[in-house]
């Protein structure tokens, strides 16, 4: 297949996009981890598990018995002695056994699946709940996608192990041992001869299969690269079209598509090679039976019945061996998945409630920073000994360029992080002593990237206070002037919205988050770049609402727009994690310090255009 050529010569030799698809799919077996996984079976050790095991024991026993009845008993007793009565008895017995087997299979399938699903449910719940309370530090270093993959895909990949794997392994081992014991007791010579193929079968189902498995892993890697690119090319299609890059991208896709094709072809070929070998292993077993069996019957003591039973058992060999190989694969996959799951479960939230937390009730909203230092990672110190005092009810503006520490201060007030050293206090109480859930309920943050959850507008505004009535929600929306655009939507407050839907503009989203904050009615309010994407007209509209929103609470505003900053009771200017100036707008302008220059440079930049 000839590849499509890119329009640009340079791209013939250069890889254009990079996708990290190097997720390790399996890990070597690890007992400690296995033991930890099996812990999840514990709650069911006295209920579902014994039932499942009993059902499987009965089923296996019957499957092992029937070939003897149909072979040895039917041929050597009944048919040989022309015993019609015996035949009827035999037929009746087998029918009853089959019925029992039917029942036991029913219970085995039911119980093992219920058991497996409950275990998966428990693991997923444990993981999700744990992740909810992890601190922001945890989320900072990971993309949403990678967390999603663990809660969904990694847990799913344990599903097979718990519904089928564990029980199947038991069944298969029992089955193999049972067959071997029976074969030896029927005729040890023939048993030894026939079992020559077992090592071959084991080799095929483990070593040989590993090669195949590797090949399929490669396919998955290439496929995930293809999917990443597809996803990105759909999201970035507008950029691609406005820059005329359709042909170049097609050339890139063609390479990836061909890689997928090639790896797939090679995997499927390896898979197909497997077939002749399995056929041969089975054939050799059968040929030995026919040849040596016939020899033993003719020259020795062996009976036709035993021969028939052997034929049945031989047919039952391959399945358990093959399944054990598969289960082994499942285990390796489960090792990788569970390692990733346990990695999350072992994360400790570093922001935690104190032993005996204090209630937030009596707190008015005075905020103090005493010698607060903070580092996000080892290298960069975000705050270098901050001392601040905000009176309750004041409006404070934090000013400084990106990385100066404004948002860090806001994050510490909301206790999304704890300071590396020093203390943050509300009304003189270290906030680490305050009950976290109450603290969060009383400190509302309106962030720049407001997240819209799928649901109605009503539900979205209610997000921070789930018990608010419809009237309260509407009143909150009205207070910030959001009611106008909401009422223009097709279903008003009951319009369904979602994160990726294009129904709401950036400014409208921001208004929704204002309404959320008004409804939550916090004692301390943080506006983090909250007005930056609102157009001037809307800004004008919400200025009144803003005033109302700020009234009666301690408010911390992080903003670039002078109009938002100017009226603050106090402006704190930060630079590289230090407070370099504070005061009112007029004081700071008169001082002609950093603030003055920031303001001037903003206007100079704008003027220049």
């Amino acid at each position, binding site marked *: 297949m000839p590849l499509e050529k890119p329009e640009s010569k340079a791209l013939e030799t250069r890889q254009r996009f*990079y996708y990290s698809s190097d997720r390790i799919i399996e890990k070597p077996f690890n007992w400690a981890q296995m033991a930890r996984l099996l812990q999840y079976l514990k709650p069911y050790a006295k209920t579902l598990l014994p039932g499942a095991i009993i059902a499987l024991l009965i089923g296996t026993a019957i499957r092992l018995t029937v070939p003897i009845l149909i072979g040895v008993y039917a041929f050597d007793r009944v048919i040989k002695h022309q015993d019609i009565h015996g035949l009827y008895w035999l037929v009746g017995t087998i029918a009853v056994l*089959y019925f029992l087997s039917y029942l036991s299979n029913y219970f085995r399938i039911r119980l093992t699946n219920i058991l497996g699903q409950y275990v998966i449910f428990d693991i997923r719940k444990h993981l999700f709940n744990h992740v909810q309370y992890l601190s922001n530090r945890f989320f900072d270093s990971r993309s949403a996608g990678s967390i999603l993959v663990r809660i*969904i895909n990694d847990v799913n990949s344990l599903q097979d192990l718990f519904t089928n794997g564990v029980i199947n392994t038991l069944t298969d081992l029992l089955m193999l041992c049972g067959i071997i014991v029976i074969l030896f007791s029927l005729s040890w010579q023939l048993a030894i001869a026939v079992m020559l193929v077992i090592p071959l079968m084991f080799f095929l189902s483990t070593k040989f299969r590993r090669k195949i498995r590797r090949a399929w892993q490669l396919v998955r890697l290439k496929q995930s690269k293809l999917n990443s690119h*597809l996803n990105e*090319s759909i999201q970035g299609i507008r950029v691609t079209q406005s820059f005329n890059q359709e042909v170049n991208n097609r050339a890139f896709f063609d390479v990836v598509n061909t890689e997928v094709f090639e790896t797939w072809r090679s995997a499927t070929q390896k898979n197909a090679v497997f077939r002749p070998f399995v056929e041969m292993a089975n*054939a050799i077993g059968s040929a030995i039976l026919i040849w040596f069996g016939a020899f033993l019957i*003719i020259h020795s003591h062996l009976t036709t019945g035993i021969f028939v039973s052997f034929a049945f058992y031989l*047919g039952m060999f391959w399945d358990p061996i093959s399944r054990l190989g598969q289960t082994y694969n499942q285990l390796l996959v489960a090792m990788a998945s569970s390692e990733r799951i346990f990695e999350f479960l072992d994360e400790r939230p570093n922001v935690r409630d104190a032993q005996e937390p204090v209630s937030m009730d009596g707190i008015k909203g005075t905020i103090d920073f005493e010698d607060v230092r903070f580092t996000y990672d080892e290298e960069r110190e975000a705050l270098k000994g901050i001392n601040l005092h905000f009176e309750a009810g004041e409006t404070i503006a934090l000013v400084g360029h990106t990385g100066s520490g404004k948002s860090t201060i806001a994050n510490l007030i909301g206790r999304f992080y704890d300071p590396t050293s020093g203390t943050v206090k509300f009304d003189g109480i270290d906030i680490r002593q305050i009950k976290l859930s109450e603290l969060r309920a009383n400190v509302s943050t309106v962030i720049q990237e407001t997240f819209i959850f799928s649901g109605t507008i009503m539900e979205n505004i209610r997000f921070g206070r789930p018990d608010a009535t419809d009237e309260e929600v509407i009143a909150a929306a009205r207070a910030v002037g959001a009611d106008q655009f909401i009422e223009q939507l097709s279903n008003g407050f009951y319009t369904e919205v979602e994160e990726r839907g294009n129904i709401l503009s950036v400014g409208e989203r921001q208004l929704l988050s204002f309404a959320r904050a008004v409804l939550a009615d916090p004692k301390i309010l943080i506006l983090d770049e909250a007005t930056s994407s609102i157009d001037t007209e809307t800004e004008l509209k919400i200025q009144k609402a803003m005033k109302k929103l700020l009234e009666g609470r301690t408010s911390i505003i992080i903003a670039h727009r002078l109009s938002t900053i100017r009226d603050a009771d106090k402006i704190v200017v930060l630079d590289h994690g230090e407070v370099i100036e504070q005061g009112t707008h007029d004081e700071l302008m008169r001082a002609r310090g950093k603030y003055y220059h920031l303001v001037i440079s903003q206007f100079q930049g704008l003027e220049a255009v």
Partner: protein
Amino acid sequence: MLLFEAIQIGGGSMDTFRRLKNFYWPHKKYLFGSLLFLLIVTGATVCYPIVLQQTIDKGIKGQNFGYASVLAFGFILIMAIKGVAAYFQQYWGNLFGISSVYELRKALYRKLQYLPFRYYDNAHTGDLMSRLTADVEGFRFFLSFGFSQLFNFILIVSFSLVIMFSYSVPLAVVTLLMTPFLAVTVYSFDKKVHPAFRAIRKSMGRMNTRVQENVSGMNTVKAMAQEAKEIERFEWNNTDYKDKQIYTSTLWAKYFPFMEFIGNICVVVLLGLGGTFVIRGEMKPGELVAFFSLVWYIMGPLMELGFMVNQFSQAKASGERLLQILDEPIEIASPENPIETDRLLGSVEFRHVYLKYPNEESYALKDITFRARPGQVIGLMGATGSGKSSITRLIARFYDATSGEILLDGESVKNYSLKTLRKNIGFVLQETFLFSSTIRDNIAYGNPDATDEEIIDAAKRAQAHDFISELPKGYDTILGERGLGLSGGQKQRIAIARALLINPSILILDDATSAVDMQTEAKIQMAFRELMRGRTTFIIAHRISSVRHADEILVLKDGQIAERGVHEDLIQNPNGLYRRIYDIQYKDHEQLKTQQNA
């Protein structure tokens, strides 16, 4: 009954498969090769019971060890042939599927590259992705396995029946009599299990969405202290998924052992009846043993028939969803004999332009008329949704105007090739999209042949060179999806460099500075000045300062031009929208000036 249904479905959906023929028919040699070898495989499979019968009845009974040896080695030979045939059957069958979807994917990707904005406005990435992955896979699976499974079913059942009838007519009839029971069971199982599987998939999808939302909105969840509520909501999804799984497994538990039971009962009946025949000497023992294998050659495939039928209807549904993409009209394309020119001068004229987006009731633009001479700057102001961005999208023909004319250098935009058009128009958008690629390649996105010097020069002019140089890997730094790891301002500057590198004659700056801090904004504004030199520029902005020097400012309201003119004129109108905005924004500035002068 099932077969009948299969044929019925087949009849109705042949159209889907016929229309997708281009993708798989060129590879028909793999299909036919695979089916040919399948014939050999199936033929060899049914040899086993015959060999067993011969061993028992001739070798053992006749005390003929020589014959038994011949059988044993003959059997190995047959199985060796079967193995080789199985290899080709499987390999070529798969090859048929993967070669076909290779072409299919290629065609889909090609289509997606050229579908207009209108399509993407209404499409969800998730939905498109599921078509490109799950549906393509469903189609492949059917091509790779569907045909051969059906063929195999017919072959093995008929071969087995022939052998059965040749051994014993009554026993063959008994076996046949059992099949309707099995068929009914399979049928009713199938009716229930597929909706159940769909329910599982749906439930999984909902859970996926829930977790995705939770994790993506974690900042909001934490800011509002809603963890407990989120746990409660997730618990519902988790429980729902578990219940759906357990319900499905109950179906399995109910039906699967029962199907096996029917087969087993057949074995019991055969044993009773056949045993009697053998005792009476009407049948040879080996023939009875052969029947125990042959029964399963019929029962086994029958149990899978339901899956085959379902696979077929799934492949059909997948095919339809793929055809939907392939059949989507590309209404915006280059004309037959397009004007192709390397460089436009950059004059832009709108004559009574109206625009209505599909699926929307009101007009996004109403009677827009204006003219920009080469090198002029046009400022566009107005509230969100007033139509500012729509004007710029029409120039590059991302949409076509509903009525009215748009002229570039005096020619209708529709007379140019899309390539010429877009090569000459550079966009810097509010929401910057960067690709998973190096910074270098992101800047060179529109001009991959650019030299390193040109790239660095563009970065310098976009005020991006300094921060890029400070990164450990500089221009070779790989950005994640959506340019993770860079601040909004940094991404914006890379986007500016990207637009600069294609050296467009028309430049569109769509609210490009809203998310950056004061110092960066100042820097970006400087970069814009550099960028605008010698180009016709459209500036969409909220700030008066960004547009005040424009040659013409259009103030839009509800898709119409509410006010127009230069800054000095517009501020003279005391009731105008522009003047109101000016008042708000310049209050600060005037005050500042007086302070500065004080």
